[in-house]
């Protein structure tokens, strides 16, 4: 079998590929030793300084725990990170919200409901000024520029947390201001592996990465298949198949297909095989689209089969011309039946540049109020917050989510079943990104 042949000869291929891509990325300086190691013994196939739990970084100027590979610890489920906190940066307890202030908020487009914000403004007699960023890196660039005095950011990806702390951009939380967080949010986020003690982060949205399809066009049932990912491999609809538009989601999918549960891999042979698998899918599907517009393309019929985030699948219902057509949309998360699959969350962080730390705390906490989190999900984002009041049962019984799409709701148990796509060491990340760039370039 093709897959086996690749796995049987990883070393020769891996080293050549690795050198090509790592050199191409031009960011390998932090781990030059890793490049030399990869060039050395024939058995060495790992890119980077070791992205596995055994390579724990121990103490670090920025925190303890995690694994090595970057100037700061890289968090893993089995190697959690506790970030250092300078007490001088923590907002003192018992302060009143800043009066007459303008709270400066950063968010992804449409990723915080205006009604929720208006209610906050009314409650605290303040003004909220929203600035949007179109992707996480642009968001980081905004807060790193030193302009804008931003107070709070909604939707910081977990992979961006460590580097933001190391760059001195984040303000630690004072949990005295976070009553909704303490009372309403899932236990697992009270001290997540990527930020033990939740010193710098509170969660914002949760989602799973699964299979989204038009059941009126395709007679498939991934849930009944021995390997649900075969829907992409076996007979992808020609010209109607799409994957997400980022390296980790796209390349993790064939890895999940092969049974890997930890997809934060450093082995060039595994990454290259994943790339080749996706290229083979593209060949079968008559070309693949890599995009994040599944929520419009499936309702429009432009795409029939899409690797999707549950939040986008939830959003798609909004874009149907005829709401009864929601019956034609199906979403399946392979983790439901114990198959390897991704489940994820992003975070809300306070920014050191902000002038209104108390109000920023209060807004971060405001969205965890049961009423506000529901409004945020229903009216705008389509992305669920990890609050106890949002369950598949409650969302279906209240008519917010169609029963057959209750699979888009993530539960706290799903985080026990699913895998996480986490921050990679710079040179490993470059290797992943180069592989994905080759896919989008069709080479």
């Amino acid at each position, binding site marked *: 079998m093709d897959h086996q042949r690749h796995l049987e000869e990883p070393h020769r291929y891996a080293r050549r590929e690795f050198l090509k891509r790592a050199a191409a990325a*031009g960011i390998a300086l932090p781990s030059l030793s890793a490049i030399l190691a990869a060039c050395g013994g024939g058995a060495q196939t790992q890119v980077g300084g070791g992205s596995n739990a055994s390579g724990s970084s121990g103490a670090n100027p920025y925190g303890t725990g995690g694994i090595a590979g970057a100037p700061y610890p890289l968090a893993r489920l089995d190697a959690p990170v506790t970030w250092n906190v300078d007490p001088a940066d923590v907002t003192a307890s018992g302060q009143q919200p800043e009066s007459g202030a303008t709270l400066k908020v950063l968010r992804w487009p449409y990723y915080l409901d205006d009604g929720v914000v208006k209610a906050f403004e009314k409650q605290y007699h303040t003004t909220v000024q929203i600035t949007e960023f179109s992707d996480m890196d642009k968001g980081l660039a905004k807060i790193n520029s030193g302009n804008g005095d931003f107070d709070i950011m909604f939707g910081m990806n977990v992979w961006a947390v460590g580097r933001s702390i190391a760059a001195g951009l984040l303000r630690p939380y004072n949990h005295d201001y976070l009553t909704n967080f303490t009372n309403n949010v899932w236990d697992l986020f009270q001290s997540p592996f990527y930020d033990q003690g939740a010193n710098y982060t509170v969660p914002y949205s949760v989602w799973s990465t699964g299979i989204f399809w038009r059941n009126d066009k395709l007679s498939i049932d991934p849930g009944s298949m021995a390997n649900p990912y075969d829907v992409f491999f076996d007979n992808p609809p020609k*010209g109607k198949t799409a994957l997400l538009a980022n390296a980790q989601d796209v390349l993790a999918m064939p890895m999940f297909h092969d049974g890997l549960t930890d997809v934060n891999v450093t082995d060039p042979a595994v990454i290259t095989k994943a790339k080749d698998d996706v290229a083979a899918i593209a060949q079968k599907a008559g070309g693949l*689209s890599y995009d994040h517009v599944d929520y419009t393309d499936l309702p429009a019929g432009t795409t029939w089969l899409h690797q999707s985030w549950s939040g986008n699948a939830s959003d798609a219902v909004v874009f149907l011309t005829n709401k009864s057509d929601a019956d034609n949309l199906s979403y399946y998360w392979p983790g439901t039946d114990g198959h390897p699959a991704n489940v994820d969350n992003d975070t809300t962080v306070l920014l050191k540049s902000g002038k209104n730390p108390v109000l920023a705390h209060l807004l971060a906490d405001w969205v965890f109020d049961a009423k506000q989190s529901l409004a945020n999900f229903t009216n705008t984002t389509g992305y669920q917050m990890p609050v106890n009041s949002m369950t598949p049962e409650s969302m279906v019984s209240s008519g917010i989510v169609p029963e057959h799409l209750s699979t888009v709701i993530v539960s706290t148990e799903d985080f026990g079943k699913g895998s996480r796509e986490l921050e990679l060491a*710079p040179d490993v990340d470059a290797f992943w990104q180069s592989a994905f*760039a080759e896919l989008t*370039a069709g*080479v």
Partner: protein
Amino acid sequence: MSSEAGAAATRPRYWPTLAAPATIFLLLFFVFPFYVVLAVTFGSIDPILRQPVPAWNPTTWNPAILTFTWSNIVHTDGLYEAAFVHTFVFVGLATLLCLLIGYPMAYFLARRAGRHKAAFLALFLAPFWISYMLRLLAWRSLLADDGYINRALIGLHVIATPYPFLQGKPLTLVLGLVYGYVPYMILPLYATLDRIPESLMEAGRDLGLSPARTFWHVTLPQSYQAILAGLVICILPMFGDYYTQQLLAGRANTRMVGNAIVDALTQPIFVQRGAALILVMLVLLIPPILYYLRSTRRATELAR
């Protein structure tokens, strides 16, 4: 003293200051951004935030990324080779079609539309009052599987199942480019053809030329500069176009350089590659621009 030198001597001294706004504009919006592109290309990546760090001092410039990018353009199966090939083929075809469609159209408007000239011109330009992006979105609806075009073709029994216009079809992309840029070909041609004196045509005919030979020996040479201008005005933006491919094709087999640049710029560790691609494109486009400028100058000198 020559007449030109005399004219210069009598020219008011404040005249050069009239160029100040344009000069400042160019410095701010071309020269400085261009230097930023250079500084990013030859800069580095921040090890913590993994974002590009421009190298403002030219003595510290590192050419590694430019070399890598260039090698991936010129080598078979390089990361950007296909994008460059696609771009040259699609832009070449689209420009040729723009000329073949645009010239007769401009000729008709300028010389045959008579007193309805203004009305025809307004009708022709009306669709272009709407943004190109919106028009492309409209085309997406029209060309979708369940769009009007597929429905019509199926209704007329031309095809049995919907034709996947929007799934990486080079034809759709080329026609999209033609649709978007043909006005830029027509307008300079119209302006020139409209100004050719009728007496020149009459002279040709008086000398015994047939209408076709009059066109070949009189009209076409007279409109040569306009053709060049139309080609340059069409080709330059087409080379940087990325949204036509994104909206009408969206697959790797139709990816153009503009798409490669956008892809690189959206991934911070590859921003330097995007900047390098911009530099390469700029260098590749300089010769046709220089040719156009030289040709225009020569034509102006001949006309004196």
